[in-house]
């Protein structure tokens, strides 16, 4: 398995109150698969994503990504893990406003061991002609495409997407999902996406439903649907 999560637990303490956010999660994902985590607000999906991305730590349990037990890594090793293996896509794009499109992509290629060519990646997301523009001169969909270009320029093994279409309209959302599917196929990148939108699960190989920090259901999808055919 490319990703293996076993009995993952995480809780937060606020004063005297301790809140269990993840209560023993198990998840597996093969190399090159698309996984979708569904769940309402507060179900723990963002926490799961953060721990998997090496941004947060768990209380107990084990996560293995491509043979590396990331729950055993120290801070510096976690930094290297994020740097070399994980790409992030955020709901609100998180672009640097005073850097151009190309420069925003370079933020990541700058620290990558073997980055892809910036122009090639921008061409892949259909933004090469806008490489000198600043984020505020782009539409929401275009900004998310820059965010995707930035995430894939390091050619990550794992792409973590936090509500990638959450701030977009239907048509633009479909375009973004199509692009993610293309990247998955073209670069054999494993993608894990969190979303509220159940319709998106149609394009995923595996779907995990979370509720109050526990798995409420897990589905294996034998017949994934192309993104352009998804409706909601």
């Amino acid at each position, binding site marked *: 398995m490319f990703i293996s999560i076993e009995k993952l637990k995480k809780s937060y303490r606020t004063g005297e109150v301790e809140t269990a956010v993840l209560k023993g999660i198990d998840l597996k994902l093969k190399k090159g698969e698309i996984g979708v985590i569904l769940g309402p607000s507060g179900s723990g999906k963002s926490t799961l994503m953060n721990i998997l991305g090496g941004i947060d730590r768990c209380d107990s349990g084990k996560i293995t990504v491509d043979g590396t037990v990331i729950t055993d890594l120290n801070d510096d090793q976690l930094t290297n893990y994020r*740097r070399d293996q994980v790409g992030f896509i955020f709901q*609100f794009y998180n672009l640097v406003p005073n850097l151009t499109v190309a*420069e925003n992509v370079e933020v990541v290629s700058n620290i990558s061991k073997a980055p892809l060519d910036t122009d090639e990646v921008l061409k892949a997301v259909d933004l090469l002609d806008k490489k000198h523009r*600043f984020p*505020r001169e782009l539409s929401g969909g275009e*900004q998310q495409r820059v965010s995707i270009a930035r995430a894939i320029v390091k050619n990550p093994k794992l792409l973590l997407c936090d509500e990638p279409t959450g701030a977009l309209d239907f048509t633009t959302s479909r375009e973004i999902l199509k692009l993610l599917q293309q990247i998955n196929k073209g670069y054999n990148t494993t993608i894990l996406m969190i979303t509220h939108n159940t319709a998106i699960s149609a394009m995923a190989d595996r779907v995990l439903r979370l509720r109050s920090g526990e798995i409420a259901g897990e589905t294996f999808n034998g017949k994934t649907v192309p993104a352009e055919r998804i409706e909601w």
Partner: protein
Amino acid sequence: MVINKKITRTMLENRSSYLGSLVLIIISCLLFTMMTQLSGNMASLTSAFEKDYVQDDAVFVTAGKLDNIRELESKFGARIEEGASFDYAATKDKTLRIFRQNTKVDLPAVIEGKNLSGGDIMVDPSFAKANGLKIGDGLRVFDRTFKISGFVSLPNFIYILKNETDIINDPQTFGIAVIGKDDFDRFDKGSSFYSIKFDPVSGAGGVNSASTNSASAANDNGSIGAREKQFRDYLKASGVLVSQWTDIGDNARVNYVKIKIEGIRGVSTSMPAAILLLTCILTGIVVWRMLQRESIIIGTLYAQGYRRKELRRHYLMYPLTIAAIGAITGTALGAFTLRPMLAVMVSYFNIPVGSITYSAGYIAASLLLPMFFLGISGAFVLQKVLRNTPIDLMKGVREKNRVNFIERKLKLDRFRFATKFRIREQLRSLSRLAFLLIGVVMATMLLLLGFTAKSSLDNLMNYGFKDTYKFQYEYVYRSLQEARTPAGAEKFSAASVTLKSNSDTSFEIVGIEPGAKYLLLKNKNGTALNPDQVIITRPLAEKLKAGPGDIIDVVGKTDSREYSVTVDSIAETFIGEFIFMPIEQLNKQIGLPAGSYMGLWSDTALAIPENQLYSARTVEDSVKDFNKSTEPIQTTVGVISFMSFIIGLIVIYVVTSLIIEENKGNISLMKVFGYRRKEVNSLILNSSSIMIVIGYIIGIPLILTTMSMFFKSLTESVKLTLPVVISYPYVIIGFIVIWLTYEISKAMSKRKVDRISMAEALKAGTE
């Protein structure tokens, strides 16, 4: 309003920015109050001293004794008194100049202790302090012991210089003292001179009813210069030979205090104003950022019925609170430091200190100006934000995402990412950039101010004096000499003159031997000029706007003889305002016998009886004394450097904090992307490096130009020319200090960068 409760809380949350503004205002008000009150008090104390103790208009020496002083006083409406002094060498390098007590002009002021009675002596307080002398102590002068009855100031000896040509006093080695007439005369030593003080001209009545021709001439041209000329003409007509004449305006011992007061006055407004400007920009930025951050709250309050006026009043409280606290603290500190500062000044300039006065106008300005300017800068940014509609404000006026025209025009493709990021980071906020640049330029200028002063003085002594004067000993006789010069010595003569067209412009013409080897004058190419010609020094050439071929018409100060000299060359030297010409040519022009001279230059000490000499000095000792006496400047340089370090630290730390605050999201994002701590620090904290270098480079010519202009305006009235230079080691030291400031502020900021969590990126809003 209940929302005013959050003023203190917000300030504490962003304490580095507010504290930075506060410290800058305190420094600004402290300097303004202290300097304006100091220069005001110094000016009034000096002027009262000059008036109350009848400072002379001129001091002169005659070949013979004046026996008609009463008649002269009456004829010229003046007070004339014969004074006398001698130098007593207490030890090899400790000299006390002892004066006979005057009763009409240049009266001694008892600043502590009692006036003289028989067997008493009064010494200047700086000499007494430096040499551990107290009132009541005994002081031996030759074979007699005097009792120190008090400390004294002389109105013609405010800055206690041993020689007129000295620049810095040294109370350790030289001081003045006054003894009674009978005690003085018992020594049967020293030389006499006359001090003259003209009475003020009152109305059309003239100088004095007894002075007929002179009085009418004085009415035509009642300036002191004109009255002095009439006086000298009269002496000449009466057969009295005046061998020395020194106007009070040419007396360095009085001039320096004027220069110092003017200097403080000049700096007293410009420096605090520059700091206040910095503070206004800083506060403007801080308020602007706060309004950005709180735009949603402002919009909500607007929507709920708050009036624009109420919101403006609330947000203006931030800059006004800072301004009020800073102004009150700074002004109070400035007022408290006035007395110790005045004590420091009085340790240099020997004047009696009466009561200290505070100028209500300056105190009010110090209290109100920060509030006025910070209020305006705050109101300016408030106006920009409050003109938005509540709905726009509630959506958030995301100004930070705006890209300015410079950022848009920049083509940075050829640079590596880190360079591009740092350039864009600097250009992102032009006001922040201006603040950083002005701050670094100011800190540089302040830092180099002390270094430039020290370099310029060193340069003047080491390259001005030592390169020009090649002799070891200079002797000036009291009377004209016609004897053969001793072997190895070179003779010279000197004539004090004024311009024929302007009696207030005076300088010296020095006659030197045609083959003079003890004076080396060079042209601008560095080639030695032949001494067998008329050579004008660069400062005088500039003052008179004279060059080779020009004819200068002059009038002798002592004999009113009129003659002309034709300039052959200009010497690039800053030793003073002189014309050098062959001695025989000068003797002929001023009517002195061929072969006569007034002084000697020599490589070795000459055995000349003391009573024949007006002055004797060695260049080596002067340089040694000078170097020793410039040591206090190093303390001043240290203090100024420390102040510039503090200002630099505040500015750079605040800018770095602003950069970190503005980049919170980006820093967090970089951490998420796997940037290492060192890499984040390098990108964010090092982004100002280039501006520090640029600011420093801009600061150097600015301080040189400013100081040149400053010195020029200060020294216009005296014959001191100080070429402003800064030596390379000081430029390097200055840069190291500024860079150190930068590194310290970066080190202080590192913790802030470390504290930013990766969660910041995850909760970021749009874009």
